[in-house]
Structure formats: structure tokens, C-alpha cells
């Protein structure tokens, strides 16, 4: 495929993602850059970072530059109780970077399926997540889990609410040694602790992990959750043009907002997850809505870390001109631009400029100059 010169990897990815989401009937959702600060205060824990850029609007209202997109979409779409609404977005958000402790503008793309998503809708969102990753790079993995399993087990083992946060953190880190200590402190039996620890370490293709999961959970009420996992994942696996799907029970989310499916996408060469998503019915319930939702976000700023082949030249041709008239320089540039060459017109040649050829515009026309660059 012929791509325009200078089109960055990020822009090509965005174009591919827009086409992909459009093919599944998702419509673009455009929103305002600002949102009332109050929305984020009420749902502070849903945000990745609680630092927000605020300002007072002309009407005296305290406003914020969006640190998150999902909350705005949920707030503005109303309570959908007659089917689903499928939207995608491409927005900038403003968050504090962990590394620099300063605000950064982050381009985020994602989609949401709101209303009453059924098993097919969930499978579709997971499939779109897996296909989105393949739009970014060839070697990708989508890790999927179902929070119903972990929360179901914690309920069954009688773990108190205030012990759950630390346990979920350990599960998320695959930190089985400290999980065992926390279980002992919370009064969980040794057998039940072994189940939780084994669960945190489970990782692999669904065909390998699902049978182990069945053995681990036994014939309990959680068997239905495993059935749901299997049914949805088998619908995701029907396309080859998607990330490798792995079952990873260490994928967790804030259980105050998320329930059901949670997932993270990884690209070889990028150190953290570039895609995160899940089913967040609890957020909607918290915001007074009866409906549910599932969606994901892709952090496009992370794609910068992918090694893009270095352009060997800053320009194909450099045209040096001194006292020539603007019209003469324009004509000479146009002549050199034939065949799509990139021509940089300058008065003097900068030191570290890399170019294929250097030309000089003189009274007798355009002449080649020996180029040592």
C-alpha cells in the first residue's frame, strides 16, 4: 500500500481503527474538551490518576479538562434500556504522567457498547480489542479474565471487604507468596488459599487454561461463569487477524466499578498494556442507571515506543539559493519536486542535514553541488 510520506505510525493506526470500528457499525462520538469537575470528584476512583486540570468557566462553574472519556460518554448517553448503543471515540485526555509528575496530553481511542450488551456484544467488543491490537503490530496478546470468578471465590471463602483490595493487588501482580500471607491473616483455609494462589498464576491459551479452571473451581455456581467465558472466547477466536487471546486470571480491575469481563492488550516492544477494557455495569449503577456497558481504550501515546524504521534522509534534494527572485526559486523547486521528491529550499546548508543531493540555483540555472552529508 502506498502511504503518504511522513504519515506517522499513530495516524495510520487511527485510520485503520476507524475503518475497523465502522465495519461493525460503531459510530464516532465527539465530545467537548471540558467537563464539570464535579463528575470526576464523584467518581475519583474510576480514574487512573486523580490529578485534574481545572479552571473556572465564565459562569463561575468549576470545569476540568477531560482526564477520561468513558465517564463523559456514560453521563451524556442517558439510560439505554431498549437495546444497545455502539460508539467509538478519538479524543485527547489530560493526565499526570507517572514518570515526570507533570500533566501530559494523551491521545486515546476506544469504543463503548452501552445499554444492555448481551453475550454476542461482549464477544464483539473482545474481538474488536483483539483486532485493534493487530492494527498496531503483528505480535500482540490480549489477556482476558472474568472478575466474577475472583469475587465469587472471595465471597465463598468469606473474605471481608477491607481485605479484598490488598488481595486483588497481589493477584494483579501474580504475587502468590504475599497473597498466601494475606489469606492466612484473613482466616482463609489452607486449601482455599491454594486455590486462590493457583488462580493468580494461571496463564495461557483458553484451550489449556479452561480445563484447569474447571478442575480448580469444581462443580459450583462459578461453573456458569466459566461456561460464559468459554462461549464468549470461542466467538473471539474465529478470526486469524487478531491478537493471540490468553486467559489470565491476574487481570483485575476496581471491583467497585468493574464486573464480568476485564482485559488488557499488549504489543511486543511496548513495556506496558496499550489497551485496557472491561465490563463496567457497576459504574453505571453508581451513576443511577439501570443499564450496563462494556468497552476499551487504547493509549496511542504508548505507540511511540514502537521502533519505527528511521528515515535515512531529512529531504531528497536541497536547493541552495542566494540572490535569486522568489519566482525563480519556486520554478526550480517545482522542477526538482517531480517524481514526488522532497525538496528543501534553503540559503545555506545546515551542518547535520541528511539529504541525497544538493543543488545550487545560479544565474545559469540549477547545478549539482558535491554533498558530503
Amino acid at each position, binding site marked *: 500500500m502506498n502511504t503518504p510520506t511522513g504519515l506517522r505510525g499513530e495516524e495510520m493506526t487511527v485510520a485503520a481503527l476507524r475503518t475497523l470500528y465502522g465495519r461493525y457499525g460503531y459510530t464516532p462520538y465527539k465530545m467537548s474538551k471540558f467537563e464539570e469537575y464535579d463528575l470526576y470528584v464523584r467518581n475519583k476512583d474510576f480514574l487512573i490518576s486523580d490529578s485534574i486540570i481545572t479552571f473556572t468557566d465564565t459562569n463561575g462553574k468549576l470545569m476540568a479538562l477531560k482526564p477520561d472519556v468513558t465517564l463523559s460518554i456514560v453521563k451524556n448517553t442517558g439510560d439505554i434500556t431498549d437495546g444497545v448503543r455502539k460508539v467509538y471515540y478519538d479524543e485527547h485526555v489530560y493526565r499526570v504522567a507517572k514518570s515526570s509528575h507533570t500533566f501530559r496530553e494523551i491521545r486515546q481511542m476506544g469504543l463503548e457498547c452501552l445499554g444492555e450488551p448481551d453475550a454476542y456484544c461482549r464477544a464483539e467488543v473482545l474481538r474488536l480489542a483483539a483486532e485493534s491490537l493487530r492494527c498496531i503490530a503483528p*505480535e500482540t*496478546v490480549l*489477556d482476558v479474565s472474568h472478575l466474577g470468578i475472583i469475587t465469587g471465590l472471595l465471597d465463598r471463602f468469606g473474605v471481608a471487604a477491607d481485605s479484598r483490595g490488598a488481595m486483588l493487588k497481589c493477584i494483579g*501482580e*501474580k*504475587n502468590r*507468596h*504475599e497473597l498466601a500471607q494475606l489469606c492466612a491473616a484473613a482466616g482463609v483455609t489452607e486449601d482455599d488459599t491454594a486455590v486462590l494462589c493457583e488462580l493468580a498464576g494461571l*496463564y495461557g491459551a483458553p484451550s489449556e487454561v479452561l480445563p484447569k479452571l474447571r478442575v480448580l473451581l469444581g462443580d459450583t455456581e462459578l461453573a456458569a461463569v466459566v461456561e460464559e467465558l468459554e462461549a464468549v472466547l470461542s466467538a473471539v477466536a474465529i478470526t486469524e487477524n487478531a491478537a493471540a487471546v*490468553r486467559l489470565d486470571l*491476574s487481570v483485575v480491575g476496581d471491583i467497585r466499578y468493574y464486573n464480568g469481563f476485564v482485559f488488557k492488550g*499488549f*504489543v*511486543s*516492544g*511496548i*513495556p*506496558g*498494556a496499550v489497551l485496557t477494557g472491561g465490563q463496567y455495569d457497576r459504574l453505571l449503577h453508581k451513576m443511577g442507571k439501570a443499564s450496563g456497558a462494556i468497552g476499551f481504550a487504547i493509549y496511542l501515546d504508548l505507540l511511540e*515506543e514502537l521502533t519505527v524504521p528511521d528515515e535515512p534522509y531529512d529531504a531528497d534534494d536541497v536547493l541552495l539559493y542566494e540572490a535569486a527572485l522568489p519566482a525563480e526559486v519556486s520554478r526550480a523547486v517545482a522542477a526538482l519536486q517531480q517524481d514526488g521528491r522532497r525538496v528543501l529550499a534553503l540559503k545555506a546548508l545546515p551542518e547535520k542535514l541528511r539529504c541525497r543531493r544538493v543543488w545550487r540555483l545560479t544565474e545559469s540555472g540549477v547545478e549539482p553541488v558535491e554533498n558530503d552529508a
Partner: protein
Amino acid sequence: MLNVALPKGRLGEKVYDLFEKAGFECPSIRENNRKLIFENPEKAVRYFWVKPSDVAIYVERGAADIGVAGKDILLEYEPDVYELLDLNLGRCRMAVAARADFRDDPRRTLKVATKFSNIAQQYYASRGRDIDIIHLNGSIEIAPILGLSDVIVDIVETGTTLKENDLEVVETIVPISARLIANKSGFKFKGAAIEEIVRSIAAQTEGNV
């Protein structure tokens, strides 16, 4: 190629022995020179020595797929990594220490000198105690003696340094030991090698508890 960040020093050498026994040897690392990076293409492994407190950064940022870091560093910097194993090496504890005549006066803000600001902050926040953090980079023990702080939060191994500076442990915050950590993305794409290492090292360190 599996990239492994090892902490410079005695602990790092012990850790390398574990990797070697796990079948990921790199003989050039034993040579006596000042090189920091060692590679064994046959075993598809590359080791590098880094400052112990930097291991977590190398792993979180993906420059290393796995590494060995102290629990103190993991608690202080909270890197987004997998913590796969407790190696039970380099065992010590994070503790609050003070002069023998120290009495905590809850009417006053407690002045805490430490290298571990995050750990100290979280510990005292969980107890609802108002503190003033004095971040120091070394010789923490002299802060209470000079009246710079009421207490210190620091790593205690044998307690000899504390004793020699007329300090004693008031409370233990958390036990510390070396942990095997992995980059989350690296784990997805080099999982087989990482799991092989984890299995072997787990078997080797079982008796260390």
C-alpha cells in the same frame, strides 16, 4: 533474547548463581573486569549489572524482562510489574527507629527522616498519624541525634548501626527480601523462558524460608 537486570553487589552474585543453576549460564560474567553487560547467545540470555534501586525501573520500562529487586524498592516506587517469587535472600526489615528515650507525643506532628518517603507516608497515613517527612539520601541514623527528626524509617539488618548510634527499633513496618520481578509485556512474549526460570529458582530457594 531474555534481558535480566541484576543488582550490583553480593546479592546480585548470589542471584546469578541461581540463574546459572537454572540453566541460563553466562560464563563471561565471572571474568574479572568492569563490563556491565554480558551475553550468552547460545542460551539467548543477556545479564546486566545495575544499581539495586534501579532494577525496578529497568524492568518496568521493559529494558529488562526480569530482574531482582528488594521489596523496599518495590514498596517505595510501586512499579507496575509482576512479582513472581520471594527469593528469601537479603532478608531484613523496614522499621521505625528512635533514640532510647523517645516518647511519641500525639499532640505534635511527628518528624520522620527517611530515604523511603512513600513507605513512611503510607505507614503513618494508615495509622492516622500526622507526620512531617524529611527526605534524606544517607546517614539517616544521625537525624534523631542532631534533633533533625523524632524518628527514622529505614532498613534494619542486624541492628548494629542503630546500636552504635544509640538508636533502637520502635516498630517493624514490613519484612524485606529480594523478589524476582518481571515486565508485564515481556511476560507475554517470553513467558516460556521466564516460567522455566521461576520454576527452577523456586525449587532452589524453597529451603531459604
